């Protein structure tokens, strides 16, 4: 009997290269054997594992994703990836778009939302989501440049607001307080 002793490789790629990389694996006739998700340092670590049927060589493609970022589904290349993607979406709250065969939260019958996401990551995700919401609200309420140009005092851009908030009272101070809480809370 031949003992194969397969090689294991890890490839770290940015999210923008995910679909191209997966497509390349498909072209190489590799088999998707698992997709795994973990919360590491307030980020999602998504690991796609592929194997070669003959050499048993395994390639793990790792993508780091922000807690509130959305990743594309790889169902176009591997149609059966939808089970893994539904699982990650429900157990970890990872946002995945365009899943072919999306169970919309009904793959597992669980009462708790994102049960496998640890408390620290869950808290960080909520804070980050709040920041994004606040920034979006402020951007929505920002007066049109054409109106301010007529004579009124121009409202600073969100980035300027944030900078101004560090020194004095202002709209941006709300976000900074949240950050302070996060840093000082020792969660």
């Amino acid at each position, binding site marked *: 009997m031949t003992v*194969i002793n397969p090689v294991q490789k890890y490839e770290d790629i940015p999210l923008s290269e995910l679909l191209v990389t997966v497509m390349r694996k498909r072209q190489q006739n590799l088999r998707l054997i698992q997709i795994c998700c973990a919360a590491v340092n307030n980020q999602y670590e998504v690991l796609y594992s592929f194997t070669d049927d003959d050499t048993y060589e395994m390639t793990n493609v790792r993508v780091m994703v922000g807690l509130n970022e959305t990743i594309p589904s790889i169902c176009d290349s591997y149609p059966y990836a939808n089970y893994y993607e539904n699982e990650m979406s429900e157990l970890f709250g990872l946002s995945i778009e365009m899943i072919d065969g999306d169970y919309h939260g009904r793959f597992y019958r669980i009462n708790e939302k994102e049960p496998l996401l640890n408390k620290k990551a869950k808290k960080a995700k909520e804070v980050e989501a709040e920041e994004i919401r606040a920034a979006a609200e402020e951007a929505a309420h920002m007066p049109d440049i054409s109106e301010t140009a007529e004579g009124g005092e121009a409202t600073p851009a969100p980035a300027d607001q944030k900078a101004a908030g560090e020194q004095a009272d202002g709209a941006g101070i709300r976000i900074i307080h949240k950050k302070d809480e996060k840093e000082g809370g020792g969660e």
Partner: protein
Amino acid sequence: MGKKSVIPFGPQHPVLPEPIHLDLVVEDEVVEEAIPNIGFIHRGLEGLVEKRDFNEMVYVAERTCGICSFGHGMGYCEAVEQIMNVEVPERARFLRTIWMELARMHSHLLWMGLTADAFGFESLFYECWRIREHVLDMLEHTTGGRLIFSVNQVGGVHRDLNEDQIRYIKDNLDKIEEDMKNVEKTFFGDASVQKRTRGIGVLTKQEAHDLGAAGPFARASGLKYDMRLTGYEAYGKLDFEPIISTEGDCYARILVRTKEIFQSIQLVRQALDMLPAGDLNVPVKGMPNGEAMVRIEQPRGEAIYYVHGENTRFLNRFRIRTPTFANLPALCKMLQGANYADVGILVVSIDPCISCTER
């Protein structure tokens, strides 16, 4: 053209030992599409890594499933040993291999009984389970437990085999081999078995590859894919070749699993003859730091164990990819075009283990 209707299959069904639900889109009693639905017994065992330290997690991993219990414990231990650079003693590797093969035998015999039950051959079902009792007796005699025997630990095993136990196993293996030859004759010679299994649920080699099928299910379609070939534990020192078939139907799945029982008997005999002297385990120092992915061949196919530690006694992540999870897409493909009456036997033919799948 008939009217399409959706027939719910499971979660409670006479052929299903565990709950899985399928929505079957049926036209004229022919299945057009099958939509699986799991999640009835999800326990979130992987999440317990935050509450149990890496040594205690062995027992949690073993309780993932009652049938594949030993393999889960072994896969987890191997993964932790890999990130902690622990060199497991040779004797422990052989003992793990022996218990793993005994576990494979009882799992396959359980499945053969359930398959016989699915096509209504009750006496064959009893016979398979009667033989399985001998395997469980061997496990009880050597470990103290029949299904969950907790002999694994990070760094080796807890229990040893003495001369009496080795003789007891060898005697029992002879009896099982003899009994299995009779069962084999019925499975492969009986007209009613052939009628219910030949040409039913054919999955081609290409489909098995494209849909990520694993284990005896994939090997029955001609895919020579057996993780034992990678030589983990003592498999590298044993002489065997994966058993494959090319028909890809239910009959081929029975054939592969039956032959694998004979193969397991041979592997246990080889391992017992080669069992080296030495320690059972080594002390483990430090905390797991890093990540490892280990693949082993469970009775139902390739299982993957991923662990990620950050130098604390609690792992950051533990993940099990079970073979049944991998076989679900191929099951759905196989059900397309099948007769409604064959759905039961087709579902059983992948040897579904829902406890493992939902963890």
